[in-house]
């Protein structure tokens, strides 16, 4: 089943085109990243499929059906900022969200525990730090254990420990078979968490598909030895290697995805009289790939 299908979606704000004819689909069970720099249309895209923005043209489907409010109750969504009643406590805010989603209160303690907010659950929302607000918003998404989650910049405002926790939570949700749609401008976040990605640039969809295929089409191996010149000579003649660069003393070898074999490289160099003191497999720099995709 397709969780989300976007068909030729466009959205104009006056003369500005926030989305230009975007189409893609999100299969069930994937962690689908919507990646793009600030202002590329990520939040507009998610706002449209949550019915708080009206598309100029185009349409979308949820769960293979014409979207309606009942679909949204089955999706836990954090859009842009945590939106809660400032004068109510965390737990009272969750009671309202649970009522709207037509669930009972029984989940509330559990989701607060999941995001580590139990201690402050009775404090007013207005007294929360940015990170705590974000945690409460994530807790609200988890109410009723929905099969689909939509997160817009989920690690926004969190400290490094919080970021790691939320990423771990997303991986855990993925393991439980949930579908996660996540917008982010953070490359490594998408790479660490997502299985699929769609890249937006100034409202246009540049590409979408499997993360491994899109974000890295080459494997890179860093090698080092006492004699860099000799090392470079030797590896040039090694089979399978596409190209060799010398980046300030670090020699980099590029291979097609999945073809770099560290044992082979080590053996080959040793047989040819070079003893390696550094050998490391790296995927191609995501930044480089991202700039490649979003520039020109």
């Amino acid at each position, binding site marked *: 089943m397709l969780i989300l299908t976007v068909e030729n979606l466009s959205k104009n704000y006056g003369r500005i085109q926030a989305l230009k004819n975007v189409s893609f689909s999100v299969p069930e069970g994937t962690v689908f990243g919507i990646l793009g720099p600030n202002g590329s249309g990520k939040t507009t895209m998610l706002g449209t499929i949550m019915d708080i923005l009206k598309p100029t043209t185009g349409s979308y489907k949820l769960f293979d059906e014409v979207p309606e409010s009942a679909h949204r109750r089955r999706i836990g969504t954090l859009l842009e900022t945590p939106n809660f009643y400032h004068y109510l406590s965390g737990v*009272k805010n969750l009671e309202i969200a649970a009522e709207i989603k037509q669930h009972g209160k029984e989940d509330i303690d559990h989701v607060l525990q999941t995001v580590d907010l139990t201690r402050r659950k009775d404090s007013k929302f207005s007294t929360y730090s940015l990170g705590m607000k974000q945690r409460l918003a994530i807790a609200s998404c988890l109410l009723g254990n929905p099969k689909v989650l939509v997160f817009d910049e989920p690690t926004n405002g969190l400290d490094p420990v919080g970021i790691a926790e939320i990423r771990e939570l997303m991986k855990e949700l993925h393991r439980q078979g949930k579908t996660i749609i996540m917008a982010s401008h953070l490359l490594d976040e998408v790479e660490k968490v997502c299985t699929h990605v769609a890249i937006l640039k100034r409202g246009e969809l540049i590409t979408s598909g499997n993360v491994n295929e899109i974000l890295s089409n080459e494997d890179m191996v860093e090698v080092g030895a006492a004699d860099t010149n000799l090392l470079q000579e030797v590896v040039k003649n090694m089979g399978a290697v596409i190209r060799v660069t010398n980046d300030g003393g670090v020699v980099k070898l590029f291979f097609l995805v999945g073809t770099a074999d560290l044992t082979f490289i080590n053996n080959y160099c040793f047989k040819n009289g070079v003893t390696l003191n550094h050998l490391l497999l790296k995927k191609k720099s995501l930044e480089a790939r991202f700039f490649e995709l979003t520039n020109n």
Partner: protein
Amino acid sequence: MLQLLKIEWLKVKNYKAFWIFSILYSFAILGINYTGYYINELTVQNMPASQVILGSPYSFPKVWQTVGFMSSWLLYFPGILFIMLLTNEFNFKTHRQNIIDGWTRQQFVTVKFVFAILFSIVATFFNFLVALLFGLITTGSHFSFLGFENIGYIFIQTVAYITFAMFLAVLFRKSGTAIAVFFLYGLIFEWLITVIINFKLELTPVGYFLPLQVTDVMLPIPFGNKVIYKDAPDVWILVISSLVYICGYYFFALKKFTKEDL
């Protein structure tokens, strides 16, 4: 609808301003009527002849109208309250979140208006109790349902003021602007426009049909209203006009909410 109202109740139940406004409003209704009652007693005591003009406003059956007229000056209280309840949602972006979590846009608007009507029912009932109280403590007054239709007018007027305030809140989205316009329009400009239309342009009774004015004419001052609201239309016309306004505010809010970005 009950489930939607339950959620609306969860929003206001722990909202201090809601209770402070409601309690102040209740005391103010009692207070303004006691003031009227007391001044009337004093005036009649000192100048018995004045009773010819004043009548006995706090005796049955006049008391139903008197309390309604006096309390109508306080309708800015619930108006401001409902402006805050709506603009809070815009400020907190919870109007978006409610939709995201699974309400339809129509549900969001409708439950707010239904809640306003329920609030008006409670306020009307309180006015009824106050009228009953003053009617019973006035010497020489005997309980009567005559003029009881004024309680119905109190209800319509309360709904009209609150929904007009909500209309302003939806239009301006900022509580400061909406409250300022509400006060300036209701207390100054509407009177001015009525005077210009009715007397300057000699178009009476057209000036009586302005949004708040139409309910004020429906529930006029208990004495001398024939002078103040000269050539006023029949009350049933005023009632229908008020209801048309109320429906208009609802459909305006509904259209704005269902057609535009939130």
